[in-house]
């Protein structure tokens, strides 16, 4: 019966179904917060789902100038990568059911691919605005991914393992990493914001400038899948930050004495609260800034994000040598 349980893990919980449902919830939460902060009512609870279904039923147009195969497969592939990445993130106990030593590298890798794919999709749309958006996306990938990988590296330097389970276990007995490495936490949040393509880093989409960038020519089902991808990036990204910096499923007190159902339920609740907290911060950032230009972003990214990330690594190494960790 082992394969049945594994199938349940992959397709239902904590797999695809939960990830997609949670993605819709997160989108609603984010939009509602954004609206409330702008003094608006905001969407009703099922609005993201309604939008998704509506987009699915819309006409699907492939431009004459587009390269058909690439244009069509990009949204499906990026969704597949993101859903796979989510399988390896622990959400109710210290390790995911499918976790292995080195799963962090896999998740980081799978999380980067959709950005590259978005570039490919945009570049092959055969539209000037898409091409501009695509190369903006690519210039941004080289800025924020470097910083993001660097700040994820510094907790790993302390635990000495590329496994989520070791990271979570370490944070159960020690302070969480956002206290130990505050700079890394802030940089990671900024990078996630850039990754999600939201204000102030939404120049690849920038609808007022380039009409939605790589998404310009996408319509119907493919656009729906892209929107789902954005939601999944939100889920995977916030879950990653929750695990790496906010202690994952661990709480402030020891829950292992409560028996495994209570322990896992509490762990799951902790996961939900932490990811929503990450989304809350991202929402505030989104509503508090204007979009910056791509050249300003590259400058900002290398001057501040990159520098701070390196500073964080240096500090970690020095503290480790001194013997604090």
């Amino acid at each position, binding site marked *: 019966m082992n394969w049945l349980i594994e199938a349940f893990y992959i397709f239902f919980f904590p797999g695809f179904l939960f990830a997609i449902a949670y993605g819709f919830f997160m989108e609603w939460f984010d939009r509602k917060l954004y609206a409330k902060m702008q003094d608006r009512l905001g969407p009703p609870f099922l609005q993201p789902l309604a939008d998704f279904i509506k987009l699915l039923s819309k006409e699907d147009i492939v431009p004459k100038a587009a390269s058909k195969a690439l244009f069509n497969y990009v949204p499906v592939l990026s969704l597949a990568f993101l859903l796979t990445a989510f399988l390896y993130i622990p959400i109710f106990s210290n390790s995911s059911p499918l976790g292995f030593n080195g799963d962090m590298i896999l998740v980081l890798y799978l999380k980067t691919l959709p950005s590259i794919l978005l570039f490919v999709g945009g570049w092959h749309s055969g539209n*000037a605005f898409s091409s501009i958006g695509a190369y903006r996306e690519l210039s941004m990938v080289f800025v924020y991914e470097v910083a993001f990988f660097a700040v994820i590296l510094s907790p790993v330097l302390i635990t000495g393992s590329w496994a989520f389970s070791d990271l979570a276990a370490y944070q159960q007995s020690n302070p969480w990493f956002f206290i130990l490495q505050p700079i890394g936490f802030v940089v990671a949040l900024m990078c996630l914001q850039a990754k999600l393509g939201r*204000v*102030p880093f939404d120049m690849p989409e920038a609808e*007022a*400038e380039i009409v939605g960038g790589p998404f310009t020519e996408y319509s119907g089902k493919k656009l729906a899948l892209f929107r789902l991808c954005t939601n999944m990036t939100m889920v995977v990204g916030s879950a990653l930050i929750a695990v790496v910096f906010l202690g994952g499923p661990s709480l402030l007190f020891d829950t292992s004495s409560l028996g495994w159902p209570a322990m896992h339920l509490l762990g799951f609740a902790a996961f939900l609260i932490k990811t929503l907290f990450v989304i809350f911060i991202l929402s505030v950032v989104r509503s508090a800034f204007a*979009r*910056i230009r791509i*050249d300003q972003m590259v400058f900002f990214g290398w001057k501040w994000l990159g520098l701070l990330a390196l500073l964080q690594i240096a500090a970690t190494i020095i503290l480790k040598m001194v013997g604090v960790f």
Partner: protein
Amino acid sequence: MHGSELIVGPQHPALKEPASFRVHVDGEKILSLDLDISYNHRGIEKGMEQRTFEKNIYLVERICGICSHSHTTNFCKGIEEIMNLTIPRRAQYIRVIMAELERIHSHLLWLGVEGHGMGFDTLFMYTWRDRETVLDLMETISGGRISHAMNRLGGVRRDVDDATAKKVLQELKFLEGRADYYINLVKTEKTLAKRMKGVGILSKKMALELAAVGPTARGSGVKRDIRKDDPYAAYGEIPFKMITSDSCDVYGRNYVRVYELKESLDMVRYALENLPKGDLYAPIPDTVKAAEVVSRYEAPRGELFYYIRTNANNMIERAHVRTPTFANWLSVVEAMKGMHIADIPIIIAAIDPCMSCTSRTTIVDANDRKLGALSWEELEAYSIKWYKGRGIGWEK
């Protein structure tokens, strides 16, 4: 130097109305810009020739949705000048109150559009929320949020009674707080400054040369304001400062507008507190002599210019309207040079464009050396020729 062409508009999310910009870009840099603004020709100048003066007021009110009061006041001002009327002071003050409320509403609207252009949707939502208050005030005074129908020849149609004045004064307090807030925001917000400072440079010399008007000119340090230069209505009696900025960029235009919010609020307050007693309108003569007049007015976007020629039949023989947006387009072309693609919506929004005010048609065919109007068939044939010339086929 190689470059490619990016066509922005006539349908584009940054443009609320149709206009087309052919931008020659090299990577993210803009090399030059071609404008095509005539997508919205409505034949209003011709229409004015077929209506009586009274009815024309309601026609010109619909030239622009945002500066509807500006158009009617300017038109009435011109006809009143032909009629040699003396307008009662109370009417003059009420005209100023409406005009300044309109300026506040237009500038708030503009600030929101500018914010949206740079992705700052929160600013957009806040300014449009506060603009509602101004619209409600105008509705209380005139009965209409956008089309106020406040002017008549010789004066105004509705009075501002004490109860209304009290209510308006009360709401002004809230608006003053908000104006201070926006001044503070524009001065301190980092990302706003990053997007506005040094963007869309229009030097004072170029602003004068290209005849920029309104906040666009004042943002480049040109001291030009019809309210000061050629006072009309009650502007000669109401104290106010002319706001100028020497920074010559989008930030300067922004600076001028947010500080004008404050000035306008002060002017409304002054006018309401010192509202003179008297009639609302002067009786108008039955006949008007044939004459021509030029009427100028400082609309929220800049100088609004009317040329009116009347004939002996109590009708308009020729009217010409030059809206401020039309005067400012050339400055956009200048300001766009050397900027980034990302600056396009901001620089366009910085002149507060109003496309449908702007459309003009005069056919100048460079190949055939012809000048004049076209019939419908000729226009159709011309458009097919034009599209074919650009490689867009016409298959039936």
